[in-house]
């Protein structure tokens, strides 16, 4: 009843090709943005902002990055964590060299460094395919992790080996560093993520996105219809690493405040791959669902025993949490291999024809 497009006529090509052709979708996205920009900052405490909302934004962006590569261009990568690291370290070096520059611009620029590195490690992708490529991207992961430890220039020869975020202000308000309030950091992160999601959605609707999908579906066939495989795959690696790099920079500058090489290890890569798979391969909204699900699940699990008044030892809770997360992942894959995004789609379709079954 509520979600029905009957009576909404599209009289121009522009209307037909718009991102949200259905009015209810437009209203929905406006409401979501309103909630994210106004309601959440008003209601959420500082702790919730920095422990729940900022991480979800960071991981959503990283998941979008990986989804562009794995879900849309079909190249499985296990090096996401390292590319996030490249972004973070680039941003750190940039703030060192350009202390006066606007920090948001630096965060976005650090994606470029990550994109360059990502392109280099994407080079084997024309020869190597499937799981072989996935394992080959692990080379990037381990090599870059090693660089983060062994090249002191990257962390300005700090004794601790960690990068510490300096205070940077924008319009007189501290955005990064220890003085920045969680609220400011949340809003800056949210703005960047919103912008980049919008860019990604348009990228995917256009020629580039279609090229990637053709490569994903069958790369030889794509080659035969005149798609340059090499440039398509390398572009996918570059754009994906750009997104991951920005996500990494946001993670360190707007969330952690300080980081060392261990923050970008292989577990991080796997975590983001989880988010993409559970959320749904080849779906932008799925990246958000995946990030919310994977980040939120342990929080919920930790709170559950307290809620029921049970007292379990902390170690046991952690073990149980591992077991439950593992079992739930398998359960979700069995229930809906196409991810949460598919459930969302099914729900929308059901709503559309309601009260009829089809």
């Amino acid at each position, binding site marked *: 009843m509520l979600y029905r497009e009957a009576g909404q006529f599209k009289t121009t090509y522009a209307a037909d090709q718009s991102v949200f052709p259905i009015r209810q979708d437009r209203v929905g996205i406006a409401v979501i943005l309103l909630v994210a920009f106004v309601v959440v900052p008003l209601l959420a405490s500082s702790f919730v902002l920095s422990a729940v909302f900022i991480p979800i934004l960071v991981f959503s962006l990283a998941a979008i990055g990986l989804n562009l590569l794995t879900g849309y261009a079909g190249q499985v990568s296990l090096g996401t964590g390292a590319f996030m690291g490249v972004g973070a370290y680039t941003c750190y070096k940039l703030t060192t060299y350009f202390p006066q520059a606007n920090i948001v611009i630096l965060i976005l620029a650090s994606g470029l460094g990550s994109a360059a590195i990502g392109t280099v490690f994407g080079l084997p992708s024309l020869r*190597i395919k499937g799981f072989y490529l996935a394992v080959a991207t692990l080379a990037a992961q381990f090599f870059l992790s090693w660089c983060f430890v062994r090249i002191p220039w990257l962390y300005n020869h700090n004794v601790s080996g960690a990068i510490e975020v300096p205070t940077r202000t924008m319009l007189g308000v501290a955005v990064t560093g220890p003085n920045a309030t969680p609220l400011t950091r949340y809003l800056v992160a949210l703005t960047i993520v919103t912008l980049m999601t919008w860019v990604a959605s348009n990228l995917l609707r256009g020629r580039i996105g279609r090229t990637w999908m053709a490569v994903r579906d069958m790369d030889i066939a794509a080659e035969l219809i005149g798609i340059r495989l090499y440039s398509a795959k390398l572009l996918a690696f570059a754009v994906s690493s750009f997104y991951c790099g920005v996500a990494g920079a946001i993670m360190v500058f707007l969330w952690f405040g300080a980081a060392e090489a261990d923050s970008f290890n292989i577990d991080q890569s796997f975590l983001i791959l989880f988010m993409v798979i559970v959320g749904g391969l080849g779906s932008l909204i799925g990246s958000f669902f995946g990030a919310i699900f994977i980040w939120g699940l342990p929080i919920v699990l930790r709170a559950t025993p307290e809620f029921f008044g049970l007292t379990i030892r902390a170690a046991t809770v952690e073990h149980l*949490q591992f077991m439950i997360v*593992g079992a739930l992942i398998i359960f979700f894959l*069995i229930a809906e291999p196409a991810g949460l995004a598919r459930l969302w789609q099914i729900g929308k379709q059901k709503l559309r024809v309601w009260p009829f079954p089809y």
Partner: protein
Amino acid sequence: MDLLYKIFLDPFVQMGAAPDLLVQTLWEGLVAGVLYALIALGYVLIYKASGVFNFAQGIMVVFAALTLVGIAAMLRQWGVGPGDVAAYAALILTAVVMLGLAWGVERLMLRPLVNQPEIILFMATFGLTYFLIGFGELLFGGEPKVMITDDLHLPRGALEFKMLGGFVSLQKIDVAAAVIASVMVAALAIFFQKTRIGRALRAVADSHKAALSVGISLEQIWVTVWFAAGIVALATGIMWGARSDVSFALQTLALKALPVLILGGFTSIPGAIVGGVIIGVGEKLGEFYWGPLLGSGIESWLAYVIALVFLLFRPQGLFGEKIIERI
């Protein structure tokens, strides 16, 4: 010039100057390689028969070793015979546990996921990894345990050879590991090539549908394969556990086995061994002779780079089946 000298000449000069050190390094690389190959073998078995890239092999190694140690300790507490009786009884019981695990995996994970894309199955084994980590820690606790080396009558100590103007020492446990690995590979190769089940396994690997239509039971095959992988995991766990402690840190070894896997090819049992030896020897030589140039710790990525170089020439690994693509 100096750098070029250090990269291209100096290591070889060192090798020539101290041949006993070279032999020692080669031997250590060989042993490490064989042990990597054991893990890779577990991957290959499962990939060959069910098309699943089983990420959980690493944790299966840990789980098998922990179960063995845990059951042995339990039996001892109940007053079962002298140490070695308890140890061998535990060995058998652990095999039973691995069979149960294989059955459970088939029932609860693989059967509902039949005919899904490879990446979904891969992620499912990730879920399995998490589950086993939690389950293992819950049962056995997180602290490292000592492998029951003596009770299993595994040899200890070192053999020393006088050769090339120096000493080369071989740990007996390493020799045993190499022997056991070779025996296992030979047995598995025969099993795959000559037996009825082996033929059925290869049929399943070729095509699930065709295998089903000629009356091969997929369930039975999968349980068999996962059980075999479990036994390989148990052997790996004993060998690695004897060299260090049995702890969850061993799980990261699985990541070491991945370059071996792509180098040898996902589908080849001999490939796992050859790949293991190449990676092991390459890694140890690189670390020992070229490592000081770059700073230590290059072991963590050197194996991947070696594998990558081979892959650029043979994208399906050294012994993998040729990838034929059709439109």
